[in-house]
């Protein structure tokens, strides 16, 4: 393949990737894919790819790209030759991206959520890295750091309720406490013979959606739960309990009230920003 054609082909492939990155960033859809501090980096990457692609596209006809001549016959190096045929390379770049853009719904299916921990027993111990980042809590800390609703419920993140299963100190503080939290509504598929339970979950993203983990808690209604569409955003208020189920401590919210809610600005829980 001629050098000019190859440069044009490669530049178009790079511009294609750039377009996808810039579109996802400008439309805000990137929020479903990346933690906050990666989004601006992705945007800069998209711009950088655009510059690289455009520059090479516009200079594709320019000759003498190598700043020396190849007088030595033994010197057969090729500045622009890749590992494989250029068309194969471009197809391998473009096809998976094009299919993914066509297929994505910006969220996981229930099957993938199950794989990412939707129905897994909560942790009984914290990982050393996570444990080191969580400070000890007192009731005074809770009162200071958690807002109380007008009807007396402390607003808690689902993350705090979930990880309390691995923290005895936290369990003591939370047991019997009236809390309110929000998350996405989904069926409870384990230990739910009488159909009185549902699950509330959110994704926790460390860097990107691929490394995300489902953070769920069990909702106990004591009767038939109200009807919400699967994955709908719901705000629930009730009393926290910790039940020993199949050898694991399970955080269970005995629900007083469940109402439909607007999705929060950040649908997934994120680790704190680094920069």
């Amino acid at each position, binding site marked *: 393949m001629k050098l000019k054609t190859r*440069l044009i082909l490669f530049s178009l*492939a*790079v511009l294609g*990737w750039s377009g996808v*990155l810039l579109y*996802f960033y400008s439309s805000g859809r990137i929020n*479903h*894919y*990346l933690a906050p501090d*990666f989004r601006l*980096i*992705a945007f*800069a*990457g998209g711009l*950088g*790819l655009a510059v*690289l*692609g455009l520059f*090479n596209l516009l200079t594709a006809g*320019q000759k*003498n*790209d190598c*700043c*020396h*001549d*190849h*007088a*030595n016959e033994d*010197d057969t*190096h090729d*500045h*622009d*030759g*890749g*590992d494989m045929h250029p068309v194969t*390379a*471009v197809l*391998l770049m473009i096809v*998976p*991206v094009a*299919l*993914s*853009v066509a*297929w*994505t*719904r910006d969220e*996981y*299916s229930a*099957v*993938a959520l199950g*794989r990412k921990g939707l129905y897994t027993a909560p942790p009984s111990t914290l990982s*050393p*890295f996570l444990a080191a*980042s969580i400070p000890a809590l007192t009731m005074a800390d809770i009162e200071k750091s958690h807002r109380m609703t007008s009807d007396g419920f402390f607003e808690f993140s689902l993350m705090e309720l979930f990880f309390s299963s691995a923290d005895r100190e936290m369990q003591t503080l939370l047991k019997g406490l009236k809390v309110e939290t929000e998350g996405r509504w989904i069926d409870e598929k384990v230990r739910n013979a009488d159909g009185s339970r549902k699950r509330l979950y959110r994704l926790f993203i*460390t*860097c*990107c959606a*691929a*490394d995300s983990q489902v953070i769920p808690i069990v909702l106990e209604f004591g009767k038939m739960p109200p009807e919400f569409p699967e994955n709908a955003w719901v705000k629930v208020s009730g009393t926290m309990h910790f039940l020993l189920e199949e050898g694991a401590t399970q955080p269970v919210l005995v629900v007083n009230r469940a109402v439909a809610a607007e999705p929060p600005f950040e649908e997934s829980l994120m680790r704190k920003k*680094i920069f």
Partner: protein
Amino acid sequence: MTDLPVQRLLTPMSPDSQQDFALAFLSILFEGLPFILLGTLISGFIDVYLPAGTMDRFLPKNKFFAILVAGLMGAVFPVCECAVVPVIRRLVKKGLPVSCALTYMLAAPIVNPITALSTWKAFQGQGAEMMTSSRLLLGFLIAAAVGLIVSKLPLSAVLKSQLVESLKNESEAEASHQHGKSCCDHSHEHDHHSHEEPVPDHRLTAALRSALRDFIDVAVYFSIGVSITALFNTGIAPGAEWLDSLAKNPTAAPAALMGLAFVLSLCSTSDAFIAATLAKFSWGAKLAFLTFGPMMDVKLLFLYQTVLRKRFIFLLAIGLFFAIGGISIFWQHLVFQAK
């Protein structure tokens, strides 16, 4: 009855699987792309603007210290594993000791600021400082050890016979005439008068063309690697459950992830973003993945054959597998015992 892996592979993806694959694929792609771009831009500019003799000037005369310094040269001349093989081929031809060249070849993709930054960024919340420092240290130690072993071997046991012959011929030729000036990180023994003064705008074009070529080379493997990872990550790939079942085995987990790194052939500037998603695996297994991959993978097998003997490559692969696996298991044990 559970589907056989082959049946699952041949079955078209369900809409749910397509949706899951797409989310995982795009998220890893978006996360890693800027770092690949940064790496290839730097590599492109080094290719065009850095004279070939620059590296030689940094190396001490003492063989042992020269090997140690070669292991750290990636900090000054950062190149990924795809770019490093052509570079060391040229450097060996220029007279750089083979032991130093191989040390640089194995260490540079890991012991460099771009890889350090991407590892640190990818492992935020998962012990980023510990993983980054362990990766750099292990990469350096393994590369230096290989360099020291190679320094005791005859050239013919390490290099391809054609390269050994060409070195002999060139050393004879260079005795009468050597021309070291180069502008594209490779030298050519050519007529002085045929080398034109580089025109600045041509050099920029050359640098960005080099960056584009490097980007495409890396992006293709990254795209394949991300596709496979997304299939495993979402449980679509046959064997994903089997791989998961090894995750808690202290010996099999590092071996499995080194095997995965070998197959995925990821770039060292972006592999940390894949490793960080392997949530079920231990920290030590991820360290093995991140150290073994940049030193030995499918694409490197092909690239190494342009410089090294097949027998040496085979022994190198076995040695790296056991050394990195063993140290990662020990390191995991040491770090978590201490905690």
